[in-house]
């Protein structure tokens, strides 16, 4: 019996470690290439640890790609999106969970339904709106929409707000507090953990977004990392060491964020995935 369990345990760990290696190996290959000379990256023999380590690939990526400009643009767009979602999503979620009104259920239903609309359906008309307003080429088409909320985040927050007992709000109401005061002074401070989740997901999604910048950022000086790296790759297909260095730098902020807030990531995914 004991032998059988330990044998089973062994296979279990063996499979887990094998899968882990498959998951991790691409990262190692990325870092390894990013530190190689072009000659070594394009040689027929392979060493995971470069024979001479070329940190200067990272410096070259800054100069040639121009990594700094793209990072700055990405940070600006990402921050505006985070701020926008943090201002409006909790308000909307409050209106859908703590106020008894006629549209509560209907609006929540429509919000759920919008998650199923393919992006392509609205892509062209929305593009035409921005085009008519002469705003294609600015960051407004990929920042302003954040100030109208996002279905995914509204749902996370609505679920969270439902866990806040109504008795707290009623007590404040009896004391004569206005609805907005209750919202901003009582509910918002209580939902900091859920707000953190929204901030993280907005950061992650905006940081990585490709289609938005592809459609709207027409000038190179306003490109984000996503579009900048893609364009650099299509123009300089062979400079893999620089591309890998740039990809590593593009990914690192997100990995750092992840390690600081691993719990929030998991909570956010599980809340929207498990509750209906």
């Amino acid at each position, binding site marked *: 019996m004991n032998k059988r369990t330990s044998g089973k345990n062994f296979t279990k760990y063996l499979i887990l470690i094998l899968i882990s290696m498959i998951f991790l190996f691409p990262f190692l290959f990325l870092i390894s290439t990013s530190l190689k000379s072009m000659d070594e990256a394009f040689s027929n023999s392979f060493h995971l640890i470069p024979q001479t380590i070329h940190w200067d690939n990272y410096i070259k990526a800054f100069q040639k790609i121009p990594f700094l400009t793209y990072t700055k643009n990405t940070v600006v767009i990402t921050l505006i999106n985070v701020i926008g979602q943090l201002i409006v999503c909790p308000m909307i979620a409050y209106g859908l969970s703590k106020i008894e009104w006629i549209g509560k259920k209907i609006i929540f239903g429509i919000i759920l339904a919008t998650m199923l609309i393919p992006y392509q359906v609205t892509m062209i008309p929305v593009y035409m709106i921005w085009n008519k307003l002469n705003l294609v080429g600015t960051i407004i088409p990929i920042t302003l929409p954040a100030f109208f909320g996002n279905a995914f985040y509204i749902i996370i927050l609505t679920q969270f707000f439902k866990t806040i007992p109504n008795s707290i709000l009623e007590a404040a109401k009896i004391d004569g507090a206005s609805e907005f005061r209750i919202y901003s002074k009582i509910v918002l401070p209580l939902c900091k953990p859920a707000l953190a989740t929204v901030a993280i997901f907005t950061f992650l999604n905006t940081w990585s977004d490709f289609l938005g910048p592809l*459609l709207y950022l027409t000038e190179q000086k306003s490109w984000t990392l996503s579009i900048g790296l893609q364009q650099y790759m299509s123009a300089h297909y062979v400079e893999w060491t620089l591309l890998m260095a740039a990809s590593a730098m593009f990914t690192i902020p997100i990995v750092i964020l992840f390690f600081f807030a691993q719990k929030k990531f998991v909570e956010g995914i599980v809340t929207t995935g498990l509750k209906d």
Partner: protein
Amino acid sequence: MTLHLKHKKMKYSYKNNLKGLLFTSPWIIGFLVFSLYPICISLYYSFTNFNIFMSPEFIGFDNYADLFTDDLFYKSLTNTVYMAIFGTGISIIFSLISAMLLNMKVKGQSIFRTIFFLPSIVPVVASTLMWTWIYNPQYGILNKIMSFFGLPELNWLSNPALTKPSLVLMGVWSTGTMIIIFLAALQNVPIQLYEAAELDGAGAFQKFLHITLPSISPIMLYQIILGLIGNFQYFTQAYIITGANGGLNVASGGPENSILFYALYLFQNAFVYLKMGKASAMAWILFIIAGIITYLLIKTSKTWVDYGQGGDKNE
């Protein structure tokens, strides 16, 4: 029912309705401007000939007729169906297996979970660049591993028969979100159910079939719907890979158009060929397909999704 509604209506005071409207107004405005109006006008656009430089000119069903005789349209549709079936299916099977492994009482569960999840947060441009390099026929690591084991070296991204499987593999690598959701669902399965089954002498496979699967079936439905809709919109990876070979041909669909996916062809029609009416018709066909799939899944789900079991035990 009507009585109940009436009673409810009375509960909503004018003041509360106003407040509710005020709090949700940002979303309502956004919905009208960025969803409802675009959906409606997109239907109109699909019956017109137009682009950025010319205003819409009504042409009836011409765009649809054009699409139904367009070989590339069918090609992009079959490519996308391939991706929807195999991309979604393999990812779901793989992530369920991974989640079940993680759910066994293993030491270092959180470390494994982190490793499994990490790839899914890598920006899609970075991960696609990385995989393009991994798949490089001459210098990529995958072929070096293949030759190390004495296996044939393959042209992953230039052999039309292999391009889509290569993309499926890329997708499996970044399936961490699914794993996390399945893991959470598995952890919610009441342990008493397994204990009772063990007393009845059920084996591991029987437990999986009769307890695990029914208990997680609502989550399975959710994953299938989101997976299918996501894969029907598969775009970025294909756009990057088709643009990688020198980037001269912006309207490429990869080797023999094997990765010309629906969303990619739609994008090319709208922004490369400037046939925005035709692209709008494609968008509406996609919308209808996505609607039918979701409807059918939810409709048939009553026969295989079990909402009772887990819920009752948790109450």
